[in-house]
């Protein structure tokens, strides 16, 4: 009985599958993108901090509300990100299964992130543009027609950039969905012992 046990362990030990190197590389590349994504969070945070400092230096209801609104978006974004990024940083074991599972988890996390961004980005953009317009208007910076034209064009440019980002995200979403379907199929085949 005990020798059988040792033989079983020996088979399991020596049968440890080597994780395909390309899968490891792919996961490692993904980790770099995740880190970049984490650092990217600091840009809106810095803008929000600067806006808050501005609101303290020139306190008025509008600037305080604007800063508070930005903080609200930052907090919502952070809470979502913390929940969404749970478990996506590293495989739980050095096995092919764990690497495939991590890749699946990352795909799902990216899809959730895109869906979340589809909702939050238009909201933030609208909030920021309306807020800026109100602040410009109340501070008397919009006097001549050309001021309105400049502000209007800036807003249109901003909306254009945001729309472009949304289009790129929509295309990414399709690619990720295809990748996820492939990974799920791979996992299914591995579970059933097919090659």
């Amino acid at each position: 009985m005990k020798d059988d046990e040792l033989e079983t362990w020996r088979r399991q030990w020596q049968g440890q599958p080597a994780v395909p190197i390309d899968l490891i590389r792919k996961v490692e590349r993904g980790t770099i993108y995740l880190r970049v994504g984490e650092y990217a969070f600091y840009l809106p945070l810095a803008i929000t901090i600067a806006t808050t400092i501005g609101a303290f230096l020139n306190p008025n209801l509008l600037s305080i509300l604007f800063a508070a609104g930005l903080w609200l978006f930052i907090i919502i974004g952070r809470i979502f990100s913390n929940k969404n990024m749970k478990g996506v940083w590293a495989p739980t074991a050095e096995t092919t299964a764990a690497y495939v599972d991590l890749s699946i988890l990352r795909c799902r996390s990216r899809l959730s992130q895109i869906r979340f961004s589809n909702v939050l980005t238009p909201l933030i953009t609208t909030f920021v543009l309306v807020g800026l317009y109100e602040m410009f208007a109340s501070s008397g910076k919009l006097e001549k027609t050309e001021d309105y034209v400049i502000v209007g064009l800036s807003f249109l440019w901003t909306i254009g950039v945001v729309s472009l980002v949304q289009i790129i995200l929509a295309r990414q979403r399709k690619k990720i969905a295809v990748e996820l379907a492939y990974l799920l199929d791979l996992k299914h085949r591995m579970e059933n012992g097919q090659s």
Partner: protein
Amino acid sequence: MSGLEERFHKLLTDNGRALMRLAASYTRNSSDRDDLFQDIALAVWRALPAFRGESSERTFIFRIAQNRAITYMAQRKPTTAPEGEIEIPDPRPNPEIGFVTEQQQTRLFDAIHLLPVEYRQVITLTLEDLSYAEIAEVLGIGESNVGVRLNRARQMLRQLMEKQR
């Protein structure tokens, strides 16, 4: 390719997977494992000219690998629980993880990882098909001591794997 290079190449070809498994049992991620493996390979390359066949190539290479692994561990924080205080890591957060066969392998691998080093050495070498005599030679201990450690290692492994279920 010189004779030395050929021998080195053959040694790594024949024992590469076993060395990689051994390196993995002392490390927690693929990059550390690869570092330790390279460290072992370099140590083998340096020691090879002095190897005169006093022991088998297998025991020669495993002795170097065990020594490098111990040095590697000494340079890093201990990852094993002290003897007699076996601890199980937190359960995995993702219930989907692991396929049946790999789950068993992972359980065994994780349990080996938690063994105190003297038992881990004996069990990994046993699982690599080394005889008592070879293990004794690799570790520089008596054969009877190998038997004692192996029994204790198996007992601890059983407990650890049972707790992981």
